[in-house]
């Protein structure tokens, strides 16, 4: 029996702990400076909006940890002595490990803007960020959010739920331009500005944040010289691995902790997973830093196998992700880039009135389906995963689209319109297959 210590109780660390427990009798300790128990970071916005209480974001009841012999320490690790395999806590205590898993997550980016440490300037990542956002909301008349990405939208939704006006500064000329194709971004922009009164300011970058005599933000200036009065500035221009406390140690670090395919680091018995892990060699088309809920979970699953003696490499399957932009749900399966890559073709179907859009990408010559972005309609993960694994053609995907519909029962379906539109655009004659039970189709493969 060895002592496995996990620093970080987010989805990566906790997934690792659960899998280690299931696979072994090792002693497990999970350390977090942020919170006593695991909670779902993705749900923080719902606390602010009054949809949930903090305890509702905790997937496991407190008894769970004792029952599963997972020890929890709510404290701050100041430094790690890799030679003696020991951790030094804030209160001078020391903990010795046999295996160490670093799941320390990340922190909001700050790019050295003047005034970035004023009161009322913050990111949105941790429980503490939520608490300070609550505090900063008092008497708030105008908020500015910098950075058009997922966290920025969440923050905007949070403020607008309390009728606090938001100005949203976006560096690119379209929302989440590094990820979403233009037409997809337009749908979201429309939705946010038309239906929710969000003020989008595109091609705008933050220059300076100005404070008042009490040290609280009172305005910002953009690079174009525009000045905006505000009492809050949300910095949501991405996150960066939370590894400052490891700098200067013998652990190899670039932006994140450098890891090998099996998530081991430059030091034996030390692993890194989740937001803070940076792959020396990226996996396929993925980024070398993957800061997504799902990938954190998968890394946790993988590292657990390895530390329990069954060496495994991180081999994520087909890319998938999801988000919600106010009322519009978004899912993606496979790869849809913001701009078509060489040899790719696309087919976009947009509902004439409603905010529903499907964006298919496939290979121009082989017609192999590459990926889809879907908005305002739910699609079945299992079916798309199988299509991607089998290199199904776009024609097969469209013909069987009914199998992939995951909208609730009684919802209007659009498969017919979609296939007709495709046939017309590409001069094809795909016949929409009737809806058999989707499982039988999967089994037949």
């Amino acid at each position, binding site marked *: 029996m060895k002592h496995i210590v996990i620093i970080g109780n987010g989805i990566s660390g906790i997934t690792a702990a*659960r899998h280690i427990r299931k696979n072994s009798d090792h002693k497990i300790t999970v350390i977090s400076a942020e919170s006593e128990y695991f909670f779902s970071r*993705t749900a923080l916005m719902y606390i602010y*909006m009054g949809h949930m209480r903090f305890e509702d974001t905790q*997937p496991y009841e407190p008894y769970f940890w004792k029952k599963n012999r997972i020890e929890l320490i709510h404290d701050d690790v100041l430094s790690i002595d890799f030679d003696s395999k020991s951790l030094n806590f804030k209160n001078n205590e020391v903990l010795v490990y046999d295996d160490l898993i670093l799941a320390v997550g990340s922190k909001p980016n700050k790019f050295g803007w003047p005034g970035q440490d004023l009161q009322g300037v913050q990111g949105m990542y941790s429980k503490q960020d939520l608490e300070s956002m609550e505090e900063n909301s008092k008497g708030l008349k105008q908020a500015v959010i910098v950075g058009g990405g997922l966290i920025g939208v969440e923050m905007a939704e949070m403020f607008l739920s309390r009728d606090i006006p938001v100005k949203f500064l976006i560096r690119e000329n379209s929302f989440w331009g590094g990820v979403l194709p233009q037409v997809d971004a337009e749908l979201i922009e429309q939705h946010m500005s038309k239906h929710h009164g969000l003020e989008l300011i595109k091609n705008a970058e933050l220059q300076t944040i100005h404070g008042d005599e009490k040290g609280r933000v009172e305005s910002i200036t953009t690079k174009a010289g525009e000045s905006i009065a505000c009492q809050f500035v949300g910095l949501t221009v991405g996150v960066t691995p939370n590894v400052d406390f490891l700098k200067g140690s013998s652990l190899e670090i670039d932006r994140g902790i450098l890891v090998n395919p099996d998530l081991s680091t430059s030091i034996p018995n030390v692993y890194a997973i989740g937001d803070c892990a940076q792959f020396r060699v990226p996996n396929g088309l993925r980024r070398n830093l993957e800061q997504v809920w799902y990938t954190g979970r998968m890394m946790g699953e993988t590292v657990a196998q390895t530390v329990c003696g069954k060496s495994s490499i991180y081999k994520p*399957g087909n890319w998938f992700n999801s988000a919600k932009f106010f*009322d519009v749900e978004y899912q993606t399966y496979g790869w849809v880039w913001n701009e078509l890559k060489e040899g790719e073709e696309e087919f976009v179907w947009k509902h004439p009135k409603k905010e529903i859009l499907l964006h298919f990408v496939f290979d121009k010559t082989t017609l192999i389906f590459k990926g889809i972005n879907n908005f305002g309609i*739910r699609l079945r993960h299992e079916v798309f*995963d199988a299509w991607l694994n089998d290199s199904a053609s776009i024609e097969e995907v469209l013909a069987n689209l009914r199998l992939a519909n995951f909208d*609730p029962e009684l919802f209007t379906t659009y498969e017919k319109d979609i296939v007709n539109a495709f046939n017309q655009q590409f001069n094809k004659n795909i016949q929409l297959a009737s809806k058999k*039970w989707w499982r039988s189709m999967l089994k037949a493969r």
Partner: protein
Amino acid sequence: MKAIKKIGLYVFLLGLLFFTSLPFFGKFTISQSQIETELTPQELDNIGEELIRSLSGKEFSNSTSIAHEVISIYELKNEELKANQEWDKVMWTQSSAFAMKIAQSANESGVTKSPWMYFLLSFGLGIVGALMYIIPDVVLLGPAGIKNNGIFQSTATNRGWIGMLTFVYLVSFYIILYFYPYMMINQINLLDPLKGLFIEGEKASQWFLYGFLYCTVMIVMGVKMLIKYRHSKYQIVRTFSVIFFQVVFAFLLVEILPIFGLPGVDLKSAWPLDYDFLFDWNVKSLLDSGNFGKFAFVWGLTLSIIIVPLFTYFYGKRWYCSWVCGCGGLAETLGDPYRHLSNKKMKAWKFERWMIHAVLIFAVVMTIFTGYHTYNELNSPDMQEKDILWGISSFDIRTWYSFLIGSIFAGVIGTGFYPVFGNRTWCRFGCPLAAYMGIVQRFKSRFRITTNGGQCISCGNCSTYCEQGIDVRAYAQKGQNIVRASCVGCGVCSSVCPRGVLKLENGPEEGRISDNPIIIGKDNVPTLNL
């Protein structure tokens, strides 16, 4: 819009205040001849004189005071008769029902003279005000989508003071309705003209008031539900369905059938929720009511024994609980703002399993006793002690069942506690029909909530808004389908999910329960049953 909403709130509160104040006012006098017509010969013989001496010519200022006087006379006499063992003279009507009859006859309050005006000032203002409060939400709450902003911050829905006030009001209402109905005489009488539309000259009873109020509340709060969930066709159709079954089957048909001399039965009510189905008076009244009565009896049996399990096999228990049932209908309309208050802890689930199955067993045992009694009544009318089985009287059992389960659990706790324990307290912990269908749903059904591969982000919206207290997230985050006896299929977990992870559906039994699924993404690493 905000102004309309605000005015609506005041108008509603005015109507509510008026309605609530009615028991405290009025004029109640009764004459000798009235007493003589209201009383049965036995009652007249027992307490006629006494009643006439102490009541006639006297004026009471509210229904409660006259009722109390009647009850004390009635009970005093009964005790005396019992003490003297004059069993043939003892009166078996409940004293509150007897008092009700007298007080209703004695009512000379304003409401008896201009009931329509009283109706407009109470129900009228209440309905108009509530709709003025609700309908502006179409604009105020923004475009269609999830509308849960501020739920845990509002004192009406987070067990704050408005919630607690509502709780006290609802509980008081049910206690009065079941045990002190004579306090509501004025409120009942304001519906007399409405009752008269069905059968001319017939006066409303407390059950007519309750039925009418029930339908009204469901329709008004149904409008709120429809606005709130207008992005979901499933919720829209379902809301129309519950309102339809309540208004048509539980109310209109029950009132209309007697016009044609037929028994006013609620044809959608299935045993064991309809626990008095095999009571002797029910069976007798059905069998004595010609072909329709016989049909209703056979229909009741068929519904409970064949249709309920069959439909549950195909569609899950939702076909009843959240599409047809009246209790469910109220929970899904009036109760919707409280759905997040259900307890999601493991302890609550354990308690639930004990409790609901205990009630089911109680219902079955009670039915065996009453069935035995009814059978004897029909087949051997001359038999002695027809109600006694294994030394226990079926009357005792059914009285206890009616009191504990029928009144206290289903009414007082089931609905009164909406603002405290959430809107499905009865359905989750107490309903024997839900328990019965739950067993079918868990072990032999095509219904499940499918989890969409690996898309769950463990946010907890599904669990938070599950009115049945199911920890939906615990399954979804493992990539596991949700197959639970208690799921009533309201579909709200699927609606509130921000990532499109949950879908209620019916399909082959094979693969319905996924015990140790693999989350899509990282191949070959099963998620774990922890």
